[in-house]
């Protein structure tokens, strides 16, 4: 653990989200303290991205409450205190934009309307570019970068606002190994500076040593919350054992094997 745990930064109580009437999150409680590095894990469709989107206010809650820095989410005005890295393959839009411009847009949380960028703004943008190792590429068009580099641009954008709390949605998905390492380095720098990090990940890879706490989601519920787990424990994907949820008693013919494990038949 890089930082000692402090006061609660995120307090989610009974968070429930329904999309089109179908529950995606069901009554989740999550408290994240200052300085923690939390990985939200789980299979695709387990609700881990939705939980992050609920915590940032992108998904309205059907039920429950979220406090950020002790303030209810809908009253939370100090947006410069949080940084968000959306789940996205690309940082490019329909018009070319330079790396520096995209990163600079993250500084808007601290820039009042119609005020040109000042010295502190430029310094923060330079620093953000340096942390993710893209200083040399500041003038390049975002669309000319690789997927991993674009992901680093998005992290630098969140960094530019100098937030205390980071939400990252699958920052390593579809990113090659060298870029994953660069990402891990950037996140380590952040965490060492005392930031709280909540990231969604399918596989941790090079991020593994940074994680203090793993939260595993399954079917919209938090199934595990504690020290980081090995990959196998989370997914156990090799031979998923077909359900033990049967409510009907198993009645077979007297000589049938009564095993629930489909592997048994094949051995």
């Amino acid at each position, binding site marked *: 653990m890089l930082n000692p745990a402090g006061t609660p930064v995120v307090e989610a109580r009974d968070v429930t989200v329904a999309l089109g009437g179908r529950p995606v999150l069901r009554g989740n409680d999550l408290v994240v303290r200052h300085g923690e590095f939390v990985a939200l894990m789980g299979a695709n469709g387990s609700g881990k991205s939705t939980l992050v989107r609920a915590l*940032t*206010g*992108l998904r309205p809650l059907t039920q429950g409450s979220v406090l950020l820095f002790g303030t209810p989410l809908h009253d939370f*005005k100090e*947006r*410069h205190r*949080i940084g*968000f890295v*959306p789940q*996205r393959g690309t*940082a490019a*839009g*329909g*018009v*070319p*934009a*330079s790396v*520096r*411009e*995209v990163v*600079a*847009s*993250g500084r*808007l*949380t601290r*820039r009042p*309307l*119609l005020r040109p960028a000042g010295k502190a703004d430029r310094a923060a943008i330079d620093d953000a570019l340096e942390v993710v190792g893209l200083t040399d590429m500041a*003038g*390049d*068009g975002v669309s*000319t970068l*690789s997927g991993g580099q674009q992901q680093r641009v*998005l992290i630098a*954008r*969140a960094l530019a*606002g100098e937030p205390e709390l980071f*939400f990252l949605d699958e920052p390593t998905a579809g990113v*090659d*190994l*060298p870029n994953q*390492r660069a990402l891990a380095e950037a996140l380590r720098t952040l965490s060492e500076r005392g930031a709280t990090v909540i990231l969604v990940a399918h596989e941790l890879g090079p991020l593994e040593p940074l994680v203090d706490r793993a939260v595993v989601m399954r079917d919209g519920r938090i199934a595990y919350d504690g020290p980081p787990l090995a*990959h196998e424990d989370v997914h156990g*994907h*090799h*031979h998923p054992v077909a359900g033990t949820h049967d409510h009907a008693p198993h009645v077979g013919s007297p000589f049938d094997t009564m095993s629930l494990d*489909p*592997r048994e038949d*094949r051995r």
Partner: protein
Amino acid sequence: MSLAELLDLLGRDFMQRALLAALLTGLAAPAIGTFIVQRRLALLGDGIGHVAVTGVALGLLTGASPTWTAVVVAILGAVLIEVIREQGHTNGDVALALLFYGGLAGGVLITGLAGDGAAGLQVYLFGSVTSISPSEVWYTAGLALVVLTVTLGLLPQLFAVASDPEFARVAGLRVRAYNLLVAVLAAVSVTVAMRTVGLLLVSALMVVPVATSQQLARSFRSTLLWAMVLGGVAAVGGLVIAAWLSARATVAPGPSIVLLALAMFAATWPVGVWVRRRRRLAEPFPALGTDMPGPHEVDEHPHEHGDDCGHPAVRHGDHVDYVHDGHRHAPHGEHYDEH
């Protein structure tokens, strides 16, 4: 027409007014157009233009100034398009199409009721130099200045919202308000451009200069500024061409402005292709990681296992394993697991 005659024509009062209106239009339309292209809504201007036809027709019918009725109806149409787009998620283009046809059909019908017929509308559909009165030049200039001031003043915010609405929302920007602002500004610049390029071609002035400048520009800001320069040149140049041709034939300024803008695009496109290729060739190869992949992954596959890869396929529960050098491989995401 000789050069002296052309200069004489350009010196006339009505022509000077038209040139001023064209210049302002040429600057304002690409400025807002850059954000519209960034949001991949290149045809938004066209939709608003068609809706504005109804506005003009209402002006002709009621005797009110068509400029102002067009502004009001275009803004209502733009807000409606934006709301439908936001609520309907995927059907943004359908919303656009509905207003497109409704606007044009309504406009032609109402113009017919007004007794003006197609000729009255023609001036607004494809632009007309001589029809601009002194007061209308002032409206046009005022509206164009509003569009330019707001667009350039709020450039960082509008850029953030257009390039990543979700990030902007978490950053505390009012995404819906900014999107509506862009729609309203687009509607205003459509009506500004109505007298020079005309409603049916107005979208071209919003999109084509942007498409041209992004061939060469690397940053958003330079794309926007170059688009404004190119838009201004195309608008003024196209107007002069139309005036020059007017001795021989009746040429509306709209088509000549748009064709000039397209000619600029055609001229820069090969350069853009060449520059992009140069950039790609100059790019270094990605650095290779030094360590080997972990024990979980098996990284010796020149191909993806499939029906005809030569490795025997074995059904295994809910998936298929492939026998490979004495062990069984099961595809898992990017790699293969040992089974």
